[in-house]
């Protein structure tokens, strides 16, 4: 059992409240199911949002954090627009996915988890997203053979984008970026540091209470 579980002792809800974006809203859910019925990829969720909220309260830490569910959120904001309790569901799903990743519990082979991570890394490099590099990495993320298959399947799309000047092969070699990438990186590092310090403090507070 990981250290964090030990520390929280049967209080996954409190762990979520302290560490997950907008986690303090979870307890407000009244289990009406509107969010689950609104998800575009709903049938593919292991546990739709309503169930995730119930599982958090039922202390099912491993099941929630290792679930592929949150990674099927398309950020369509349907749930937010409809939830009678006005929970920021989209943000909680992003927050849970992020937290699961940070804890090393996110499913490793899940395409969206890989893609989301690569997107962030790509943007960190130059401050702007390089669509071509991101695309290439994406097609090859499941290995070379799989990548070649995908590239061939996508070839026509690529050619179309190229012909219409909506893609630049030179981007594979470098491409555009932010001038003050140093400043941007420093600010992001600082933000990360602030966030982690706060999470650690919240954890301490919880422990001293229990």
């Amino acid at each position, binding site marked *: 059992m990981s250290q964090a579980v030990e520390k929280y002792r049967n209080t996954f809800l409190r762990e979520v409240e302290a560490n997950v974006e907008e986690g303090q809203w979870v307890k407000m859910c009244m289990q009406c199911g509107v969010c689950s019925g609104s998800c575009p990829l709903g049938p593919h969720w292991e546990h739709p949002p309503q169930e995730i909220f119930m599982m958090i309260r039922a202390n099912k830490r491993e099941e929630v954090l290792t679930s592929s569910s949150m990674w*099927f959120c398309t950020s369509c904001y349907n749930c937010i627009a409809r939830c009678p309790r006005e929970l920021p569901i989209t943000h909680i799903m992003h927050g849970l996915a992020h937290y699961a990743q940070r804890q090393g519990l996110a499913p490793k082979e899940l*395409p969206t988890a890989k893609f*989301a991570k690569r997107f962030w890394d790509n943007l*960190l490099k130059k401050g702007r997203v390089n669509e071509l590099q991101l695309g290439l990495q994406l097609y090859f993320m499941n290995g070379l053979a799989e990548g070649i298959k995908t590239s061939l399947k996508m070839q026509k799309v690529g050619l*179309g984008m190229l012909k219409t000047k*909506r893609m630049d092969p030179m981007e594979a070699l470098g491409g555009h970026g932010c001038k003050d990438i140093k400043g941007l990186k420093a*600010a*992001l590092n600082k933000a990360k540091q602030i966030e982690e310090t706060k999470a650690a403090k919240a954890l301490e507070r919880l422990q001293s209470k229990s």
Partner: protein
Amino acid sequence: MAKREYSFYPGCSSQKKASAYNQWVSTVSICKELDIQLNEISDWNCCSASIGYAGGGELPRLVLSARNLALSEKEHPGQDLVATCAACWLATREANERLNHDAEMKTDANEALKEAGLEFKGEKKVRHLVEVLIEDVGYEEIKQHVKKPLADIKIAGYVGCQTNRPFGIAGESFENPVYLDKLVEVLGGTPVENYDKKVSCCGGALMFSEPEKSQALVKDILEAAYDGGADMIVTPCPVCQMNTEVYQEHINKKYGTKFNIPSVYYSTLMSVAFGQSAKEAALDGQIISAKKLEAIASK
């Protein structure tokens, strides 16, 4: 001096030779016609769209947008910040509102921004270009610029998700926003009535990671457009545009359909109706060419 001036955040997909470059070209054209000046934020960065969360925590992601806002405040004081990309607009507006509502978060964001020599004050309004067109310019004035009405073209107004939720365009409903339909009418075209996939999701960024599942969503969006008798689809969002246009062949193969329907930006429609050239309207940026618009543009 231009009649209306805004601080502008183009975003990654609108850069030269990026996937929504055609949106940028047509936007520039209609802004010229309407005397709107867009002042680009000089050193903007990516907003991390809605997919950066695996690597970036809440505060780092907010700081990304706060940096753009801080640059805009510094470079273009007094001008609203305007974006054309749904994800850019959403991320920036959300960051602006969340930081303004949460003093502690704002202090934290500014502590981080100090590392880049910047400060976020939170004194700007973040707006979508569509809002500028509807609220500042207005349908009436737009109508006055129409030289070549889009007669006999039936158009499905596909609003999608992020231009519509959680903020949406002021005065519009989440379930049935009508601004694209109104715009089509103003431009002389015919909107598809009761287009029931108008606010359905195209899969967004998950088109990359879960292509088959997302393409199933797009199939329904295209089908509903066909059922409504549409000649083409119009959308305000770069992700919607790309997802509804470029995967039609894949979808046809998988489902035995025969989709071949152009999907254009509202800015392209406007540009053509304003009598601008095919190039200015970025019609050469269509992978599925919009023949009916080409015909009007060459008239």
